[in-house]
């Protein structure tokens, strides 16, 4: 059978599998529509807090006069004026017994994840504000929530700034004003556009790998074809071409859908489309490799999942590549997602052209997997 005939046969096989085709084209649409219709989810971290004020307790030493007028202002700012904070509950302790009870309640709020943090205003809070000496705020945070731990002190600057303005403490106050560069504007679909560099490659890689991971192993009559003049090379090539055409259509669909549902891209849309195609092609090659290697359909499924887990886990999303050793970076570099994510980020959010380094690695990946698929299939023993 000629290569053209094999490709035609492969199309027939794919077309007969209508459900796969439906899923292949439907899943990206559903996800893009869901994420695309969601607005207003940006990079801001929101905190829920509880406050215990000990300000009503008497103070001695440097503060002979007892004052407690400022704790309520701070609590009110946390409750009503701050954009990054939500006040869950506050407790006013006038003695140690009340404080211990409030502390226990707040500790349980923290344990049950009802709050991210609880703040304790000390006995001398109002006095320190009045005398313009450094007021101290104590906070207790859930240390297992790394994102909260890293963001809390900067986030507290907002209510502190508002409080200082209210209490006339603006002298010597230094604060940073962030202007995010290459961010997604608030009027655009932030959830979709921030998630796009991650979810698009995952969807494309996942669906294309799924499309091809069973293409060799599940085709019963394939060994019998080898009795005819058809060669193994032609079989692999026909599968690669036919599945690439399907992937091409899927990439086009994803491109149109993302453009329609709020794609925010500073860069060239052509580059964006090209990146999608390259990622899809890599998925096809990995799928063929899995299919050639696996002895049964079930092991092909298992291998697909394992490959997918490895690709997602070591893509650089969990591990910043710059932090790890060069030997480990080599492992990360051979995985397609490590190049796909920065490639799309650079195009959409930074407006850069396609990075040669990422294109090279991505296509090298495809080449290696397709060559491996061919070699494995060539030496595979098939029973007719």
């Amino acid at each position, binding site marked *: 059978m000629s290569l053209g005939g094999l490709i035609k046969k492969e199309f027939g096989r794919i077309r007969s599998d209508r459900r796969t085709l439906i899923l292949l084209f439907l899943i990206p649409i559903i996800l893009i529509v869901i994420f695309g219709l969601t607005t207003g989810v940006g990079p801001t971290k929101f905190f829920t807090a509880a406050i215990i004020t000990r300000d009503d307790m008497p103070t001695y030493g440097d503060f002979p006069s007892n004052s407690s007028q400022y704790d309520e202002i701070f609590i009110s700012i946390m409750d009503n004026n701050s954009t990054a904070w939500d006040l869950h509950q506050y407790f006013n302790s006038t003695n140690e017994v009340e404080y211990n009870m409030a502390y226990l309640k707040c500790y349980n709020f923290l344990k049950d994840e009802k709050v991210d943090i609880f703040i304790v205003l000390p006995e001398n809070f109002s006095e320190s504000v009045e005398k313009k000496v450094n007021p101290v705020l104590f906070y207790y945070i859930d240390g297992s929530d790394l994102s909260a731990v*890293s963001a809390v002190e900067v986030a507290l600057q907002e209510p502190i700034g508002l409080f200082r303005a209210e209490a006339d403490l603006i002298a010597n106050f230094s604060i940073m004003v962030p202007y995010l560069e290459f961010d997604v504007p608030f009027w655009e679909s932030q959830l979709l556009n921030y998630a796009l560099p991650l979810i698009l490659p995952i969807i494309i890689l996942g669906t294309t790998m799924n499309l091809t991971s*069973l293409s060799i192993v599940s085709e019963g009559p394939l060994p019998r074809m080898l009795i005819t003049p058809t060669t193994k090379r032609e079989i692999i090539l026909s599968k690669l071409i036919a599945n690439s055409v399907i992937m091409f259509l899927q990439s086009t669909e994803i491109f149109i859908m993302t453009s329609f549902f709020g794609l925010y891209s500073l860069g060239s849309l052509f580059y964006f489309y090209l990146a999608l195609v390259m990622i899809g092609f890599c998925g096809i090659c990995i799928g063929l490799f899995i299919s050639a290697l696996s002895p049964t359909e079930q092991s092909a499924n298992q291998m697909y999942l394992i490959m997918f887990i490895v690709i997602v886990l070591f893509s650089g999303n*969990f591990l910043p590549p710059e932090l790890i050793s060069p030997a480990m970076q080599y492992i990360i570099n051979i995985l397609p997602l490590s190049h796909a994510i920065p490639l799309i980020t650079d195009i959409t959010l930074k407006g850069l052209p396609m990075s040669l380094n990422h294109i090279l690695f991505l296509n090298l990946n495809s080449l290696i997997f397709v060559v491996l698929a061919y070699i494995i299939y060539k030496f595979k023993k098939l029973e007719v």
Partner: protein
Amino acid sequence: MRESENRKSNGKEGKFHINNIRGSLFRIIRQMKKEFLLLWTDKFNMLLAIVVPPLIIFLFGFMMNAIPDELQPIDCVVISYDSNVYIDDSILNGSVRDDYTLPYINAVNKSEYLNILHFYNATEEIYAMETARLMLISSEIKVIIAIPVAFSEFITLGLPGLIDCVPDASDIQSIQDTLNAVFDSIKIFVNDNNLTPQFELTGYEEFSIPEGYNLRFNYNITLTLSFIVFGVSMVLTILVVVQEKPVARLLLTPAKRSEILLSKYFTYTLILIFQVILLIISTLICRLYLAGSVFDLFIALFSIGFTGLSMGIFISTQSKTKTEANQLFFAVFIVILLLSGIFIPIDAMPVYLQIIAYILPLSHGDPMIRGIITKGKSVFGFDFFALLLLSTVLVLISFIIFKRRKYEV
């Protein structure tokens, strides 16, 4: 006479029941044996299901533990506009004060979180911002820090001194680290220059990972574990019913449908137990900090795995062909994965997506395991019961579908 007949018949019935149960158990055990033999024939599959997941954990742990403890400072450029002429609107007086520029540069230099690549005085280099922006776009630096024109004047006049910072926001995960680093330089600046009063923040971390344990590994392992145990047990079972051709012929024997399905559940549950034990051992070897008990962790992983297993068998019972089962698995898996909170935090999703996410099993895995590992919580909380409910529903539906399914011998 009637009483004795009744007693006899009751005795027979009782005997009948015991024989029934015995027969049923015997058939289930035989079918489990058959299942194990069937699994044994596909050794490659078993290797992938049992040996590879702990290997992934080892590799993940090795990579995380290989990350050096020392801080990686964030590369930045500082541009000062402070020596430009500032005109005070109220008195129309020009000022070129820049007394606080150098102290701030010193503070940036002192900060272990920042690394200055260049300093530009915008009075002399008017294209400083353009140059810095080109560096930002090419990822040479992560942030541009700009000291505005009235910085020194404002501090001297008792007004807030503002520091502008322009972080690269294309990498959403690193924005907070960048802001923290700039904030650190401001803290050093106000302390070194005795600019009082300042608010002192004294933080205490509860439930944090103690020193000596790798923070990154312990933080990321919760998602990884639930992802692996759920995925592997699901994929292992998606074909168990649909690919078994002799099921129809098996039904001609005394074997009941419920026994056939039950034997599959038991077989794969035993494999799951073995899998979970191996995963726990591998995570403990990789220095997992565990505030709770190993038993709680085992039950948590088992409940996640069992949900995957029951979802796999559910897919297998309701699919007519292997291809259909594969497709359904993939569709379910990708949706579960994308809405699990691994990529987008569930709290950041809109309400309708949050509802879907909380119905899906992977969204319960992370909080449940994290609670056990860091807070020493009991496994029997909301997440466990949500998973239990989900798996019970899936098991029941799979039994109903399998019972009503038509087979041709």
